[in-house]
């Protein structure tokens, strides 16, 4: 009997064929969704109305990743949500199989393989890089060393006109109270190499065209990361007559989406110099404000956009003297919800509510410009549904990237891009190294000291020789 480790037990998981290696699961159980490259076997499975990602991985890593994802989730970091681990799996012959780690499929997420399409715009790529940099910096702020930053280990979601990035693979991660500069540098170095490989691969596949260039993109990530980190944690020094610099710093951080929970301010008794350094910064400045006011759970830039609309509403309705929470409630029922009601049920899986609202606002702005009048929100919502939303692909579970990239490109396995593309009529070359792989089971865990002694005698090195 397999063992289920989870904080939220789910009986619907019991009937799955845990005694079969994940790679051999019948396709009826699988959901074909676009995804990144992986060295482990990863499949999406449908459980009730949810889709889970299942990853077959050695036990200590499954446990390690499950714990880390739980911590990250609790710390409110953008990462996939862990569901549980299935251990003690045995096949019918009684052999032990590696455990399976389950995470909830991140809805509305777009793996990079569905964002990089031939002719992807420079603007889009630049925004993806920004989202990536923010994610890395946020993880570093809470003391998380990732150890494996790559395009495949990040998921993107639309966030108003930008993107928000999520962590999907925490296997190599470490969580400390804070990180040393060296630990952050190492993460960046790994990111550079991995991302460079990722971009070269996209280039080789015809998905990244000039002027987009792998090395420039990688350099951009490094530079932007350092700029952001400096803004988030750097020391600023000025004279006592420039006290407004403190407020300026806080505003700049707010604009970047961060709250300053603690600012270290030092004055030098001798001179009139003041040193400030943000000590605790939390991401999600606008997110939190919108959540507090309306209960809406959105990405940071969506929140910013919705809050702007809320402020405009307040001003226009002459409600400046009314309590903000009351205004927010009126905005929610008089503006936001009526827009949502214009969206037919069957189209709702195409965009998240906040993203949809943002796109309606855009639609209205362009419409108003074009027609030299102010388009009412309801009319804009109806127009958006008719002109835009109808034609959009489903993004709650986007299947876009499963379509072949080029006319000749076909995945060897539609459930796993890591296995590469079909090439017709080719025999793999003979590989003598593979012949040497013996099939005997490994007596792992035991130290074969007799073999060690024999080897040492062979090379003339004996016990005590180095003493």
């Amino acid at each position: 009997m397999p063992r289920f480790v989870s904080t939220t037990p789910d009986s619907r998981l019991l009937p799955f064929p845990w005694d079969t290696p994940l790679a051999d699961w019948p396709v009826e159980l699988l959901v074909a969704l676009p995804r990144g490259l992986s060295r482990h076997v990863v499949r999406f499975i449908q459980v009730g109305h949810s889709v889970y990602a299942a990853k077959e991985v050695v036990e200590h890593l499954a446990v390690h990743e499950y714990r880390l994802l739980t911590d990250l989730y609790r710390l409110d970091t953008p990462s996939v949500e862990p569901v549980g681990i299935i251990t003690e799996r045995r096949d019918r012959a009684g052999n032990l199989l590696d455990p399976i780690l389950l995470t909830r499929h991140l809805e509305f997420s777009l793996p990079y393989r569905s964002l990089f399409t031939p002719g992807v715009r420079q603007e889009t790529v630049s925004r993806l890089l920004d989202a990536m940099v923010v994610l890395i910096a946020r993880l570093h702020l809470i003391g998380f060393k990732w150890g494996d930053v790559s395009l495949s280990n990040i998921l993107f979601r639309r966030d108003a006109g930008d993107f928000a990035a999520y962590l999907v693979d925490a296997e190599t991660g470490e969580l400390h109270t804070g990180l040393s500069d060296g630990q952050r540098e190492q993460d960046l170095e790994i990111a550079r190499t991995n991302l460079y490989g990722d971009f070269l691969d996209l280039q080789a596949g015809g998905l990244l065209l000039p002027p987009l260039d792998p090395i420039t993109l990688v350099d951009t990530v490094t530079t932007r990361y350092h700029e952001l980190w400096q803004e988030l944690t750097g020391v600023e020094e000025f004279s006592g007559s420039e006290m407004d610099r403190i407020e300026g710093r806080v505003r700049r951080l707010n604009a970047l989406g961060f709250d300053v929970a603690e600012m270290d301010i030092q004055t030098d008794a001798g001179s009139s110099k003041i040193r400030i350094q943000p000590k605790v910064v939390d991401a999600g400045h606008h997110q939190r404000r919108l959540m507090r006011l309306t209960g809406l759970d959105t990405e940071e830039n969506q929140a910013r956009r919705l809050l702007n609309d809320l402020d405009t509403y307040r001003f226009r309705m002459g409600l400046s003297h009314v309590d903000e929470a009351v205004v927010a409630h009126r905005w929610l029922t008089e503006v936001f919800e009526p827009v949502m009601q214009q969206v037919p049920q069957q189209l709702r899986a195409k965009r998240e509510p906040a993203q949809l609202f943002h796109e309606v606002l855009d639609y209205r702005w362009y419409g108003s410009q074009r027609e030299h009048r102010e388009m009412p929100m309801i009319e804009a919502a109806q127009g958006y549904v008719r002109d835009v939303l109808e034609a959009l692909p489903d993004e709650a579970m986007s299947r876009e990237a499963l379509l072949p990239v080029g006319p000749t490109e076909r995945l060897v396995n539609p459930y796993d891009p890591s296995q590469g593309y079909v090439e017709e009529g080719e025999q793999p070359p003979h590989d003598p190294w593979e012949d040497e792989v013996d099939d005997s089971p490994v007596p792992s865990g035991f130290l074969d000291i007799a073999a060690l002694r024999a080897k040492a005698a062979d090379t003339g090195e004996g016990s005590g020789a180095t003493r």
Partner: protein
Amino acid sequence: MATVSYKDATRIYPGSDHPAVDRLNLEIGDGEFMVLVGPSGCGKSTSLRMLAGLEEVNEGNIFIGDRDVTDLPPKDRDIAMVFQNYALYPHMTVADNMGFALKMQNVPKAERQQRVLEAAKLLGLEDFLNRRPKALSGGQRQRVAMGRAIVRQPHVFLMDEPLSNLDAKLRVSTRTQIAALQARLGVTTVYVTHDQVEAMTMGHRVAVMKDGILQQVDSPLTLYDKPANLFVAGFIGSPAMNLISGKVVDGGVQIGDYVVPVPREVLAKAEGEQNLTLGIRPEAFHVDEAGIAVDVSVVEDLGADIYLYATLAGTSDEAKITAQQIVARLSTRHPAGQNRVRLGVDPASIHVFSNESQLRIS
């Protein structure tokens, strides 16, 4: 050619009150395969990062060759940190998969091709170079990953748990390949693992760490045959060495009703101590009328040998659950049905440790 030396190298993380690596002194020879091993959190990765230039050295120095690199940035150290990047890029050829990082370092194309070709020859991957990496086996993927490291041609390789995410079988075959490659290339290598079996089978020498402090550095066999303290004794070897504490009496140490003979001059080194710990490897036991009495709980038949799992004679049934388990590997058949046996030990195979200092005194 490069030797590496840590001289009193210490790292204290900001905000931490004790060092993660505490006055590490370690000399690594040119071409040596040195393994750092120890339980999680003992400071292995930190030591490696210090050598890479990715972690500040708060006190002490680090040398590569006779160059003091303590304050040198990573790129000026001529080392390659190998991390677990096995992602194979499906649109790129195997050659490009192996050599792409050189491109990032602006190595000219001709030289890149040359280095990739050399690495591929070494790895038996020549015929694959112009193919895309579809449907490669786990072992072949590992070889491409090794190729990525080899083409960098550094003076020192640093590897941090490169095998930790492989299944048991691939791990065993890959560790043999890495050791063989290192021997052929002769590049000084510092390898980090938490797995003592891996450390013992791969390293020329093994440095055992605990709580930031180097416990012992020696050849695998010396670690096995002469562990310097109780920690190393218990950490190295599987099944682990039996560590049994007993009362000091005239002529030896008493375990149950039997006095295990210990030479007078050894006992003299722990003057004033009431109890000492005896370390006995499972295979050092044999069935003998003059020996430690144990109650057998499980017998595992391994074909030629048997493993005997037991507790000291006279342990009550309730106490057995938590009592120390004694493991013996015997080449004799175990007489069926016999529950109590006596295990003798050749005096030369007994390790004696002071309970106070934890150090070996035999």
